């Protein structure tokens, strides 16, 4: 490769501000990893799939079941195009939702705006399947439990 025709150097101030930005960003990133905090986004913990799971433990999966206005009970996908939020987001806020199920009204509000022609919800049930593992192999059918319920307003 031929040598460059011209090199544009940075001024002293340019170097100092850039290095200061690097030190700040790497410091926040280090704190984010060590405290495993997502609150420091975009330099928070890179913790996706970081929680070790026990080969003899359980696998939990949250889902939404809805009693419709016509009495039918249906599985509704937990994703933004249906109810405004995703499964991971509901799981993250599960504590809040269980102590205040009225927060589930937000899912009904979003569904009405996003899918105005769809059948309307009457009661929302946040459910969870728990699968047992032995040596990393799933054992039979899951245990299903109801975590929160809300009759829409």
């Amino acid at each position, binding site marked *: 490769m031929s040598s460059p*025709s011209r090199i544009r150097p940075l001024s002293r101030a340019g*170097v100092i501000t850039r290095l200061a930005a690097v030190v700040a960003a790497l410091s926040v990133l280090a704190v984010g990893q060590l405290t495993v905090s997502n609150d420091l986004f975009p330099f*928070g913990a*890179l913790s996706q799939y970081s929680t070790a799971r026990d080969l003899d433990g359980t696998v939990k999966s949250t889902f939404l079941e809805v009693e419709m206005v016509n009495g039918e009970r249906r599985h509704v996908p937990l994703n933004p195009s249906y109810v405004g939020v995703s499964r991971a987001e509901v799981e993250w806020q599960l504590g809040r939702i269980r102590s205040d199920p009225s927060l589930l009204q937000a899912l009904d509000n979003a569904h009405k705006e996003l899918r105005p022609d769809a059948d309307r919800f009457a009661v929302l049930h946040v459910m969870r399947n728990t699968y047992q593992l032995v040596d*990393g192999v799933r054992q039979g059918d899951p245990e299903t439990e109801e975590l929160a319920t809300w009759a829409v307003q």
Partner: protein
Amino acid sequence: MGSAVAAAAAKAGGAVVGWWTPAMPLARIAYLRAAIYAFLIIDILTIRNDVVAHAYASELYRPKLIGRLIPFPTPTVEMARVLQVVIIVGALVVIAGILPRLVGWIVGLAYLQWLTYSMGYGYVAHDHMALVVAALVLPTVAAATYTSAEHSQAAGWAIRSMQVGVIATYFGSAIAKWARNGSPLAWANGAVFVWALMRRSTDLSRWLLDFPWLLVVAQWGLLIIEFLSPVVLFLKRRALALAICGFLLFHLVTYLALGIHFLPTVVCWLAFMPLERIPAWLQRHRCRSPVIVER
């Protein structure tokens, strides 16, 4: 003795400064801008495309620290639409080479606001750190053309920052695994891949659930690669090319097995590639084409 230590420290400091602000080809910035700003449009429309839907469920908005520190307004559908227009129009303007610094800053801040809304409902996608760094460092470099022969330290710093953003995604992930579980061994010897496959396997990967020991081996492999990732920052030529291929292959396999593409990080691997050589490469290939001589 004291002066010898001071001299050594000064030399080390100089090396660090030199590593962070190398004179790199300005042309590479032009290619990176084209790729990154085009990708920002794809990202807000197809990947992190939940901001409008999120605005309908605003009771569940719990912004991360950045959303509490910077006075972004509460997300509404109208605000989401405004951000979409600013980001898309701004990105196209930058790709066209017009006011890449001023418009780049506007797009960078709008994109940060967009992501604050997208990731303010509990779930944070960890594949976006390198892309956010790219959106915030590319506006610090002057206008660049695809055939510019100049080298620039500002370009070097932006490129280096993107490279570190990419590597930190993997290395930080290894540290987070260690911090969360007390030791790195707990994660590697656990059932994370089983857990992930049980929640979201594909037709190509479901069979792996019958061989959990294979998944444990894969976990060890991934953890070792993540801890070693900073080495890539110091590789050159063939070794660097091999490392890039290795990481991209890992992402392809993860996509086929779990449907997770990690494209926002994948696109930033371009910062490691000698994109400034594209015109010369094209020229060589044009010259090789047979010339038809009419008799």
